[in-house]
């Protein structure tokens, strides 16, 4: 499903060169749920951004679903992110000016074939999946942290992506809410066969995943 081949990521400024990732090779099978762990600054989020096509590697190749995407242009990458990928962020990144259902609809706005009524139906279905239909017309500021993250999950899955990328999805939540979020992700992985790559600091959550990839100073250590 996901294949990274000899990935390097180097950030260069006038004075400093920072190696964020070095020689990473990674395969994630369809339907797998893996976690990525490591100390702060080891390159976990950078790895996730590269898998998510939000960032390009300095060296190496990225394949999603057998398609080499390294040379893709902005429009092609955007299309791929829209159709194949869903993102869940630590700080939720909901748009405060939009209602919950409008936030969930965002990925569908970039599918021209879908009409407004169809988009609304899919968004409400996604909210139902995370148990928040009753809050569809509330605003993010009116929700708790756990509820906001559930909305973010609904937004990530509304387009039925094959791959979910979660960057410390429980990082801003207490353990109970974190467990709720984790169970939603596990449910999606088990029932929808969605591939999930999750960055986490929490070993309890990592233990629940099938495999853990450990990074240290930009290198894979396991």
């Amino acid at each position, binding site marked *: 499903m996901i294949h990274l081949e000899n990935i390097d990521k180097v950030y260069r400024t006038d004075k400093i060169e920072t190696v964020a990732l070095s020689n990473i090779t990674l395969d994630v099978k369809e339907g797998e749920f893996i976690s990525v762990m490591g100390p702060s600054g080891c390159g976990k989020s950078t790895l996730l951004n590269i898998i998510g096509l939000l960032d390009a590697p300095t060296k190496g190749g990225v394949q999603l679903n057998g398609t080499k995407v390294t040379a893709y242009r*902005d429009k092609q990458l955007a299309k791929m992110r829209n159709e194949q990928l869903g993102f869940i962020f630590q700080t939720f*990144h909901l748009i405060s*000016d*939009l209602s919950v259902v*409008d936030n969930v609809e965002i990925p569908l706005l970039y*599918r021209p074939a879908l009409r407004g009524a169809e988009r609304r139906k899919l968004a409400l279905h996604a909210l139902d999946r995370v148990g928040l239909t009753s809050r569809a017309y509330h605003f993010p500021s009116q929700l708790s942290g756990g509820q906001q993250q559930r909305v973010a999950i609904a937004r990530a899955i509304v387009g039925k992506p094959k791959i979910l990328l979660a960057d410390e999805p429980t990082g801003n939540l207490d353990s109970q809410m974190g467990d709720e979020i984790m169970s939603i992700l596990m449910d999606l992985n088990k029932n929808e066969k969605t591939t999930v790559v999750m960055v986490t600091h929490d070993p309890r959550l990592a233990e629940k995943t099938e495999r853990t990839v450990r990074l240290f100073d930009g290198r894979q250590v396991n």
Partner: protein
Amino acid sequence: MLKNYLKIALKVLLRRKFFTFISLFGISFTLVVLMVASALFDHAFGPLSPELKTDRMLGIYTVRMEMPEKGMARTAAAPYWFLDRYVRTLATPEKVSIFSSQKTVSAFKNGVKHILFFKRTDGQFWEILDFDFLEGGPFTAQDEKEANMVAVINEATRQKFFDGGSAAGKTIEVDGQSFRVAGVVPNVPIFRITSYADVWVPLSTAKSNAYLRDQTGNFWALMLAKRRDDVPKIKEELQGVISNVEFPNPNEFNTLIAAAETLFESVARGFFSQDRTAGNYSAHLLALLLTLAVLFMLLPTLNLININVSRIMERASEIGVRKAFGASSWTLVGQFVVENLILTLVGGVIAFFGAMLILNMLTNSGLIQYAEFHINYRIFLYGLAVALFFGLFSGVYPAWKMSRLHPVEALRGKSL
């Protein structure tokens, strides 16, 4: 998608009300000034009753008579003999009218003196222009031939002299002469110098017929082309005829320079050159006016660009999210340009009502006699075009900047 953009645009506007107020004030003020200026321009030069056929009308408003050998020159309205002998006989125009430039005269009612603007015209004057008669009708070429003492008056004069009641068939005394009122027309705005007056009477009723022979005069001509394509032909024919002009007194002047032009062309020529044969300056004047308009718009445009760019910082996270979920750079450019267009169109709507208010005040103030300023469809379209230009021009650069934000940086909250 458009509904979503509209929602976001309105929310962003409400988020920082002060910045929104500054932006809207700048846009609205600029558009009000430009719309009022456009209305004044249109009022002076656009098709407006009774001058509806402006695309086929040419006038001779000033001529230059010279005696280069003696260094003598006179630039003024034309002498009657020149217009009658050389302009009225042109082959290309469908109709030619000769009339005096307006002058002020005294008229008395119940011992009260009134100053009226007065014109002497021929019968063709009423055939070329499209006056709507409130009462009666115009005097004709036959009236002019017979020197019949008839007059057409405007509504304001009817009000002053006949207390607003019916005036047709009644007598009015103007400039020491008595005229029978043949017709009453609506007031013509003073900007419309070709047709403007309070009282119009036949040329031949002049107290003296010396005007027929005088070397100099105060007459204008109006020519109506059969088709728009004939306009350049009329100009060309006139230039051909002018080269053969014979003066009544060649010892005083021996060279005449004149041009058939629209009022705008005449104004442009007066602005850029005194030489009546040096070509058409209307494009120059139009370019100057457009440049001034653009320069006037520049400051609020730059202000709006600045405000929009600074708003990027607030929306970095949103940009990152949209990119993450499939928005391409061009899609985001489109979104932000649409949002900016919404802001400028809101400013345009405010400006529209503001301009209507100001034009109403100008009309009611009486500062410009008989002026009735309106926002007609042309002014509305100019205003809309300016608002759209504003929105596009001030939105494209910030939108481009926003779209180029790296999604990872944007999600971290870093902007530019």
